[in-house]
Each structure stands twice: as C-alpha cells, then as structure tokens.
C-alpha cells in the first residue's frame, strides 16, 4: 500500500529549496542573510541582532577587558556566522578548524588538534562483522566511547552488542544489557552501529543538509549545522543515530585530543551524532578504534574498491548478509560466519 500525502505538491519548483537551478552556491553569511523576509521576521532578526551585537560590542570594545576576551568574542562571532561545512572552500575549512582549536585553548587552557582532512582517492570504506567470533566482551564499546569523546553521563554508545539466543535473530528478543560472564552458553552476539548506507535514508530527510555521505562513503554530521530535529534518527532503520539531550560531559583528562571536524570533536547539547568509522583514524590509514580493540578479530575494515583488501576477500569467499536488505539502503556493513 502506497501512503498518500494529499498536502504534498509535486511541482513545488524552486520554492522547495531542494533543487539545483544552476545558481551560484551561497556560503555562510549569504546563506543566512540573503533570504526573503517578511516584516515580522525582519523585526525579530533586528531585535536579536541588536541584542547580540550590543553584547558582543560591549565585550569586545570594553577598555577593562583583556586581549583574550576580545579574541574570544571575535572568534565566537565568526563561529556564529560560519557556513555549512560542505560549502566551505579548503581555506575556509582550515581557518574554521584553527578557530575551534584556538577557542578550546582559550576556554580550557589545553590544546587540541582538529583536522579537516578530506577523503582519499579510490577509497570506499566497508566493514564486515563475524558473528561466530564475537563473544560479547564489549572491548569495542569502551574503545569507541574513549576515542570519540562520547557523553559519559548518559552512557552514550554508538555500538550496541545484542545477545541473541541460538536459533533466533529477532532483535526485539535480544538482550542489549547482559550482566554475566560471556560468552553465555547457547547464545551468540551481534554488534550494530551506523552502517554507512550507500543510499542513506537519514541524509534524505535532513531538512537543513547537516548530514551527508562523503566521497569515501562515510556518512557524517556537521554538528554546527544540525538543528536537532531528529528526523534522521526516525528515518534510520538501524538505530544508528544518537541525540545529545544534554551537554555532553567528558572529563578533561579523558578527552581525545586527536579530533576531526566531522568526527569526534566535542559536541554540544541538542545535536545528533553517530559512528563515523572513526574518520579521524580511518582517513589516516588506521583502523577504527573498535576494530583495533576487538580481542577476537571479529571486526574487519578496509577499502571496498581495492580488490586485494581483506574486506573484498570476505565478500567474495564468505556467505555474507546485511540487515533489512529489502529496504534498499545498501549498508556498507556485512555480517558473516566462519
């Protein structure tokens, strides 16, 4: 049965904002400022602008304030008006990550390294998970939380390890919070996380284009462009996305300083996040933290376009399957057995 949406108009044309009419792409300031506004909006924006402007001006022009305070105000101002990451030029990306590094240093007195490294040529990442090897030791989850600076308060985790009873693949009946020695007799374990679909439904539904698929197949989120509507979370058939209900808390000494703009940099309240195949690691040739941490070798990661890679060997020689294949999402995450 096809669902019927009477409100939907097929011929919305340029008003939909989704089409590319060959117009020059607008960046940052223009994206925000050159929108048609009505009187009410204009008044709202004027008032808001006036208030923030006065606030910023008073801090930046104050005679008593120090240099760092002025710098911080300037950086915050630039941060506020930066554009969507996808539309930034290489130089803009560089200056953006430099700004984030400086802001972190000013706020916390510690240095971090934020990268804006792009995808490699001829690389499409893929992942295979051996369900006969996984024993539910949870080392992958620990490594993931530490690597990706996830909120410790809400026990945010990208990976879920599901304990299934032998003979059942029903995820509704699986135990995700097992509390006993592992592996339990008569059970097997399946790990799920973001599958980095080749045809990702979460990207389709994002109303502000804050999430997209990179050239190397990694589905990423621009945390500063996300408005926190959680459409993507609803659209994902695999429970791959997580939402920050509160400001994420990571103890200062546990913060991973090796960060990526689209990866494990510190998030804020009200934005989505998810597994990025450890973009800060994989784009440097390293394996994702979960792969390195797995003590049983159940996790295999590599370049799908390289005929000599292990992942290609698994796809060619093992009987692999993916979850909910009938949806046509084409996950780049396969399961197999020995």
């Amino acid at each position, binding site marked *: 049965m096809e669902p019927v949406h009477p409100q939907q108009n097929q011929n919305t044309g340029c008003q939909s904002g989704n089409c590319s009419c060959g117009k020059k792409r607008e960046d940052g300031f223009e994206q925000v400022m050159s929108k048609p506004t009505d009187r009410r909006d204009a008044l709202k924006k004027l008032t808001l602008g006036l208030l923030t402007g006065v606030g910023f001006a008073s801090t930046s022009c104050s005679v008593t304030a120090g240099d760092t305070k002025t710098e911080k105000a300037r950086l915050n101002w630039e941060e506020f008006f930066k554009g969507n990451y996808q539309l930034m030029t290489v130089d803009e990306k560089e200056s953006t990550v430099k700004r984030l590094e400086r802001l972190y240093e000013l706020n916390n007195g510690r240095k971090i390294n934020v990268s804006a490294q792009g995808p490699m040529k001829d690389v499409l990442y893929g992942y295979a998970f051996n369900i006969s090897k996984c*024993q539910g030791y*949870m080392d992958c989850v620990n490594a993931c939380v530490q690597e990706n600076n996830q909120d410790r308060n809400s026990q945010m985790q990208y990976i879920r390890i599901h304990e299934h009873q032998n003979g059942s693949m029903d995820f509704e009946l699986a135990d995700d919070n097992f509390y006993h020695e592992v592996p339990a007799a008569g059970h097997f374990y399946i790990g799920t996380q973001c599958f980095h679909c*080749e045809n990702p439904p979460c990207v389709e539904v994002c109303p502000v284009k804050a999430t997209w698929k990179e050239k190397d197949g990694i589905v990423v989120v621009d945390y500063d462009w996300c408005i926190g509507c959680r459409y993507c979370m609803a659209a994902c058939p695999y429970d791959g996305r997580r939402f920050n209900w509160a400001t994420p808390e990571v103890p200062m000494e546990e913060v991973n300083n090796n960060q990526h703009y689209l990866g494990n940099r510190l998030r804020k309240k009200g934005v989505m996040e998810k597994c990025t195949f450890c973009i800060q690691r994989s784009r440097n040739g390293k394996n994702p933290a979960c792969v390195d941490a797995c003590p049983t070798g159940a996790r295999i990661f590599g370049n799908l376009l390289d005929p000599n890679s292990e992942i290609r060997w698994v796809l060619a020689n093992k009987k692999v399957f993916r979850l909910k294949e009938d949806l046509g999402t084409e996950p780049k995450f396969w399961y197999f057995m020995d």
Partner: protein
Amino acid sequence: MIKHQTILLVAWAAVIMIAYYSCSSSHQDEQHEKAHGPLANRLRAYTDSIEYEKSSIEAMQNVKLLLAQIHDTVSALLPERTAVIRSYPCNNCHTQPLAQLSQGTKADKKKSHWDIEIIHGSEEVMNCQTCHNEKNMNELVSLTGSVIVFNESYKQCRQCHTTQYTDWVGGSHGKRLGGWMPPRIMNTCVSCHDPHKPAFASRWPSRLNTSSLTE
C-alpha cells in the same frame, strides 16, 4: 497477396523472437548485477590496484617485521616471534636433548615450566614432541619431522587447522596490525592463542551497561 504478407509477418516475428531470446541470455549477467544494486556494480568496476599515499608500516616503526610468503600468491609482514618469547633461545638451558634431560635425578629437574598447562587436543593426539623438536629445542618440528623455526610457527598450526589457516591468509581470521592500508601486517596464530591452551576463556565483559535510556 495477403497470404504472402502473413507469411512475411510470421517470419519476422520468428526472427525477432530468436534475437530477443539469444540477447536476453547473453545479458543475464547484467540483469544479475542490476538485481544486486549499485553498490555491487561499483565493487565490480574496480580491478586495478590502487596507489596509496600512506603505508601501514608507518605506524609499526617499533616492531620488527618479517616478510613471509604465507600462500602461493599472498605475502604478509609478521611480527618477529623470537623477540617476544621470554626465555628464547631455549638452548640457554636445554643444552642436551630432552631424552637425556629426563634421565637425571628428580633433584636435577628444575620446575622452570611449571606454569605450562596443556589444554590442546588429547594426549593420544599430541604431546610436547608433536610440536617441539626434542633434539634441538630452539626449533619446532612438523608431523613428518621437518624443521619449523619459531618465527614461522603458523606452519605448525596449519597442519591441523586448515580452515582457520585459509581464513587467516584470506583475511577473515586474525587481526591486522598498523591499520587497513597495504602492505598487510598481520598477527600470527600465537599472537592471540596460547599454543598450549589455545581456546579463549570466558570472562566478564569489560563494561556493563547499567542503564539503557529509551529515547
């Protein structure tokens, strides 16, 4: 006249039918690809080897690696084993063959290997001499009596564990070191499995999920 036209029409139809069937059978592969979606097509499109800007060796500067031909067509870098065996070379203590050593009095026998417990096959199948060369303790020995050096101990394991060996060579068993990029640097069998007690013990998970927030 009409009869001729009819015959011509039937003949044409036959030709078209034959052409269609012969074509459709030759295009079966393409249809098969279509059924498997765009990702499958993309994977099949690339057959050339890829040039990478980086290499997995960069991350493994501190480990001594040995190049090994693990299969007719597959070679890989393996970490040196003798560097991590605690009391290698074994002839530091084992100056004489095992048979002579066991002839001594009880007082002579130092319990230096007290911690080794063999849980690997049954006694009928294996004993120490199945793997260790009793004439030269610095080496291992195959089932047929040829020498296997410690750095190539995978040759010892593959005599029985052939499926695991095939999977290891292919890449679905064991672990990569130094990341996903070529060249392949791999853990060997004994990096993860204690050869005397190869099974993994059950243990508590390294983290317990005490709360699951339903969002």
